[in-house]
């Protein structure tokens, strides 16, 4: 009896296998989404907010794997060397396009080793100064910077607060000294104390200090005004058209993922931004985008040469 049932099972299995033309439908197992930071940061939170919905759409669970360190290069290497079957993906950020310029000997090729899946969200930047700086608008700041020495805080070389201000310096022709910190937290501490005068920060972490009068908010770094700050101008509209920096978050996988699989993942990641999830992300201070792999590709290809030129001009690294 047992044998008979086994034979029947095998036979049905063979029939089903024969009936479906190619192999079984992707995905057959859980999908690993590598996050290049320790848990708790914005990128990790965004990944965890969307992962359940993506999993639901694909009919499999999406597991977050935190691989911090090396400014994201450790996670990127793990992704680049993974099997290109669509089961290993990475939620990558601005540092992905900056690393080729700021890190020597990256163990992978940022352009060749990855395929873009979707552009999920970004976090608009705000330019804040300590109240001791006698300016009340971005224009005044630029004037002031021409005649006074200003210092600005970064979260380390090649990080978003560093590159964003370096880009501004090169566009506006002003000089400010970068003071590097080990992360945005300590940088904010010294900014609040006035030891350092200016910072490009995320809206969500800067806003309460602005409201309490401990910092002055002068402009936003995104191409359009942000809904939370309808009265705050963008840098671009203040005479620097095309100026745009944001801390973006996108999904990439290793090169070689079959196109139907990539397209299916792309659809899942863009469809996952339902109105409810969009609302939650906005509460986290993140702007949902829901862009395609093409959108992410365009962004990556625009940013890599931009950072490379900037890093070379500003002599950010010694290499």
């Amino acid at each position, binding site marked *: 009896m047992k044998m008979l049932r086994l034979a029947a099972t095998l036979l049905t299995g063979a029939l089903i296998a024969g009936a479906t033309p190619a192999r079984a439908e992707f995905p057959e197992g859980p999908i690993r989404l590598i996050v290049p930071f*320790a*848990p708790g*940061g914005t990128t990790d939170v965004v990944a*965890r907010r969307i992962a359940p919905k993506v999993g639901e759409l694909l009919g499999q669970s999406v597991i977050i794997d935190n691989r911090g360190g090396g400014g994201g290069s450790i996670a990127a290497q793990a992704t680049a060397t993974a099997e290109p079957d669509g089961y290993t993906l990475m939620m990558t950020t601005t540092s992905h396009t900056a690393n080729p310029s700021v890190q020597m000997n990256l163990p992978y090729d940022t352009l060749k080793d990855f395929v873009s899946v979707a552009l999920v969200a970004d976090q608009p930047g705000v330019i804040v100064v300590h109240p001791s700086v006698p300016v009340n608008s971005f224009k005044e700041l630029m004037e002031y910077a021409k005649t006074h*020495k200003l210092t600005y805080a970064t979260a380390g*070389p090649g990080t978003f607060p560093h590159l964003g201000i370096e880009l501004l310096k090169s566009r506006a022709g002003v000089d400010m000294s970068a003071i590097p910190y080990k992360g945005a937290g300590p940088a904010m*501490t010294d900014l609040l*104390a006035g030891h350092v005068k200016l910072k490009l920060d995320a809206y969500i972490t800067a806003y309460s200090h602005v409201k309490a009068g401990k910092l002055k908010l002068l402009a936003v770094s995104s191409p359009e005004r942000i809904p939370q700050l309808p009265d705050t101008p963008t840098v671009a509209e203040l005479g620097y058209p095309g100026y745009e920096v944001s801390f973006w978050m996108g999904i990439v996988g290793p090169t070689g993922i079959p196109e139907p699989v990539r397209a299916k993942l792309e659809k899942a990641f863009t469809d996952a931004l339902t109105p409810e999830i969009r609302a939650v992300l906005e509460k986290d201070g993140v702007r949902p985008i829901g862009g395609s792999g093409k959108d992410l590709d365009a962004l990556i290809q625009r940013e890599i040469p931009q950072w490379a030129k900037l890093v070379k001009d500003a002599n950010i690294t010694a290499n």
Partner: protein
Amino acid sequence: MEIFTGIELGFATALSFQNLIYCFVGALLGTMIGVLPGLGPVATIALLLPLTFALPPIPALIMLAGIYYGAQYGGSTTAILINVPGESSSVVTALDGYQMARRGRAGAALAIAALGSFFAGTVATFLLALFAPPLAEIALTFGPAEYFSLMVVGLIASVTLASGSVLKALAMVVLGLLLGLTGQDIYSGMPRLTFGSASLIDGYEFVAVAMGIFGLGEIIRNLEDESRPPMKVGTFSSLAPSREEVRRSIKPVLRGTVLGSLLGILPGGGALLSSFASYSMEKKLSKHPEEFGRGAVEGVAGPESANNAGAQTSFIPMLTLGIPSNPVMALMIGAMIIQGITPGPDIITSQPDLFWGLIASMWIGNFMLVLLNLPLIGMWVRLVTVPYHLLFPIIVMVCCIGVYSAENNVANVTTMAVFGAAGYLLAKLDFEPAPFLLGFVIGPMVEEYLRRAMLLSEGDPTVFITRPISAGLLMIAAIALVVVALPSINSVRDVVFRE
């Protein structure tokens, strides 16, 4: 009067059934991960953060805070019993705590550590309730120049951690400084001393280094010499500290509490220094400094109180200004943002139940921790009666799991193994690991603050003496240098102190 209504609100919040449960869960988890070497509060809170998505904000933060200060209690356990400091704060506890354990006083050391931590935690929480906003303002007056001078004091004091030759201690400090600089330079982005290895770009993981050099090194020594019993297990009646041990602990606990509370407020690495500073101070003030490093109860009581006091007061900058003083506080801020609370200076007025509830929960949590930890002592001490040939593979395995899971990184396990071999060699040659570890921790900070202060002053070195706090600290450093150097000039010291 406002304070009293605040405290009343706090207890009303913290004593609700749900919040009590989460406070207990946090304290229990903290104790457990503190005991598990390698897996510290940062990794644990990070892992649990996604679970708090579904919780209301107050119980979520109460639980996460409980994990943090609970780990301060648990961390001393492995340091004392098996010489494995699972946290930077328990490195100094291992120095004398483990020696006490070898003499059969493990129970006493654990009890003193728990009671000292409880006292310090209570006092520091009280400070937090009464003076949080003004203390936070003081913390902000510390800029890069002040931190540099503070770290110099710490560096000089590190020499006193050794009980043997001053020259060897200095050599170890320098070696620590050197290895501490491994990784990407935050100013230039250049990788240093990484030999092209991507896994060294963030430097050596402190916990892996400490566990290797102390714990694994000690295991190798125990295995090499079978006649060297790793542990003399006291009779169970001697679990409680003796009257003499309690008497000797009172002043170190008081001093450690004050020192830890003050250093804990400083967001730039003050809490890290507190246990080291307390140890140095106790050794200098002691009438019998020769006992330090051989099981002096003061060497456990002071640092343990200091690090727990520091753990509580390090909430001050986060709660009053919204700035993180360490990675744990950064995660707490992340947790608040997830909950839709924007951390910042207005949190006391906009979220009074959160602020006061969290403070009240710390009182309750510390109380729970003492109740939890005192009965466990008997169990821990019994654990080391397991025959060593069965115990050591378990210790090694648990260390490997802990070090790996902290960052999901195999390189950390390798680091621990290499430093284990180094720890064994150094012990054979009579070099002590404690000054090395302090150099390793302080070195990168000295450099970071020195270069930042110089950048901000545009290369003018006088900032260190024109800023009053910095000048005062440098004066303390100069005095400390004389105090440290004097006995070694008097060459008798070496002879007296060496085994």
